[in-house]
């Protein structure tokens, strides 16, 4: 679900709840949301802004090992965390550009040391990528990518990642503006009684 759909759902819930203000200029709001939504998806669909295509591939591979797709659920790569990372490095996280550039180059050197002739870290099989990661786990580069992978997977899609709220689906977090009791397993009985 895109932000646009979530906001529509919110407005619908607001009207249902009797929030008089929500109906006032619904169409105007929907227009604004539609525009914002186009802008956001255009930004995601576009190619990278800061990292090169080769760097994007390597960072994406790394995000995929930090938060892999398991048990049929999407992971960081499917959620497009790398697009968040790319946008952040071009804007508020520009100070970490050298850390990323050097970290990516180091990853490739380590990949080539492991498998002679390997094209890049991204070309290694997952098990060998994990071996490389275990040797750099404590580095500032890996810690930065881990943080950025998490933010890129779970921050609102408007920040560039968490495509279609895949990160939230991974957690079992439904993004709705309205729920009704019962909410979970342990309150089911008492809330059905009430």
């Amino acid at each position: 679900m895109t932000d646009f759909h979530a906001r529509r759902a919110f407005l619908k819930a607001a009207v249902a709840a009797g929030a008089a203000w929500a109906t006032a200029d619904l169409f105007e709001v929907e227009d604004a949301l539609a525009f914002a939504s186009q802008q956001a998806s255009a930004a995601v669909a576009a190619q990278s802004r800061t990292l090169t295509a080769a760097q994007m591939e390597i960072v994406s591979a790394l995000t995929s090992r930090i938060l892999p797709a398991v048990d049929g659920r999407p992971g960081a790569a499917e959620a497009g965390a790398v697009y968040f990372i790319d946008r952040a490095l071009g804007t508020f996280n520009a100070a970490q550009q050298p850390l990323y550039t050097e970290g990516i180059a180091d990853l490739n050197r380590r990949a080539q040391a492991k498998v002679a002739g390997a094209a890049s870290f991204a070309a290694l099989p997952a098990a060998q990528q994990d071996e490389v990661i275990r040797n750099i786990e404590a580095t500032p580069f890996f810690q930065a990518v881990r943080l950025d992978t998490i933010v890129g997977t779970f921050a609102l899609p408007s920040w560039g990642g968490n495509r279609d709220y895949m990160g939230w689906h991974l957690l079992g977090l439904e993004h709705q503006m309205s729920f009704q009791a019962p909410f979970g397993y342990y309150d089911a009985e008492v809330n059905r009684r009430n």
Partner: protein
Amino acid sequence: MAPQSRPSARFRSSDVVDFVIVGSGAAGGIIAKELSTAGHTVVVLEQGPRLSERQFDHDEFGTFMRGHNINDPATQPHTFRTKPQETAQRRQVLVYGRLVGGSNAHFTGNFWRMRPSDFNEASRLGGVPGTGLVDWPLTYEELEPYYTKAEWELGVSGEPGPFDPPRSRPYPMPPLPVKSSGVLLERGARALGLHPQPSQMAINSRTYNGRPACQHCGFCLIFMCEFRAKSTSMAVMLPLAEGTGRCEVRPDSYVAQVEVGPNGRATGVTYFDGQKRMQRQRARAVVVCANGSETPRLLLNSASSRFPQGLANSSGVVGKYLMFNTYFEVNAQFEQPLNEFKSVQNTRMVLDFYETDPKRGFYGGGGIDARFGKYPITFALEGLPRGAPTWGEGFARQLAHQFTRTMAFGCHGTSLPLETNNITLDPTLKDAWGLPCNRVTYTDHPDDLKNAKFLAGHATDIAHGAGALAVWSAPVIAQTLAVHLLGTCRMGNDPRTSVVDRYHRTHDVRNLFICDGSSMVTSSRGQPTETISALAFRAGEHIADFAKRGEI
């Protein structure tokens, strides 16, 4: 029609209004409503922007990590140290809401009364040596009508618990529906012989005064409510104030100084508008409701030859006795999904440990509630127990399995008032407007930490009693982050030891009033908002009476 499109008063800078109020949060909004409905002209100056419900979002990254809607450490930083001997370093320790509605606009909704014992603890306990613990100049009985007024005018859901103080009216709304975390807290607490009760929340459990019931979207903590189901100054008080046609709420107005005339009376304030142009709002009286960090800063920044220590600071007490409340969490995982991401943050709590018990060997008390622990980013960063994988398949599997199965027990405790915990002006650091920044000196008193450990111990027992599969918590250490900013312009009868009198009038300046968290003499048991609200209703009524009688 949306309240913000009602005709609201607009004053010119050449107008002398009856009152200028600095700050639009819990206290400022209520006092604006009280004074404007009493017939006075009012300008409310708010440093932050005015946002409408349509601009609210559920942006955890923006709010927690990029400073959306809170004080901005880039343009208005402060410095921090734990002791006066240290050189303070730039660091964000204080967090408050920076928008029309203040911190109250994004608060969680916890709405606890203080008890009679909170008002005279010092004399009952014989004081606590080495601290500034004193009695309030008010009793619970004097404030009770205003607690009731706050609950009914704003809108509060709850039901009386076994230890509640006397009340003159029931809660206006029944409690919100219990969540799984609340059922589990009840189970664990009852197994230990404790007395769980519904949480008292300033959130509608049904339609109330034209505002809808909570829709259970799950984003209360530090987010504003799109439905106006949260009973805040922003949703309730400011629209009533503006609806009088006598009140103007002026956003993007960053107050620099309270101005004082040659007769020693306040004449208004100077402030920077959104384009950083210096403006002046003249007024017959000034009410400062800027929170426990910005209120003392404004007084200290308003020093003059007549008031060299800062305005209203002949006592030297402005900025002192800063109190944060202690807050620590005990985390727990359960077998089945709780889905704590739905609905309000907490629905059940235990107040058995509220009172100070000298047998424990330390001052303090508090409450334990059952709550949604962490939003997605924070959960992924620190929501799993120590020793859990931090990357890889195991990490992904645990996040996916545990997010819906994890909850927290929030432990809310007291802070002793200490002269050495305070706000002063930093000797060198200036904000983006050229004004001196705050320097915060703070460390929790040993009793506060003992009390926090005591509460965390009971929360751990409750979690085990509820059948948790895993229970863990971070160590209890001195706090370095605060959202409750209390005590820095304390109320008292003696002008030598307090800043405002029992009616919130400053001892030194007859037409300067202060009401917000800074007025508090003791810290409450960790949920000060209802007390701030009750104080504001009481202050508003008395200030209007003084004005009517020509006593300002």
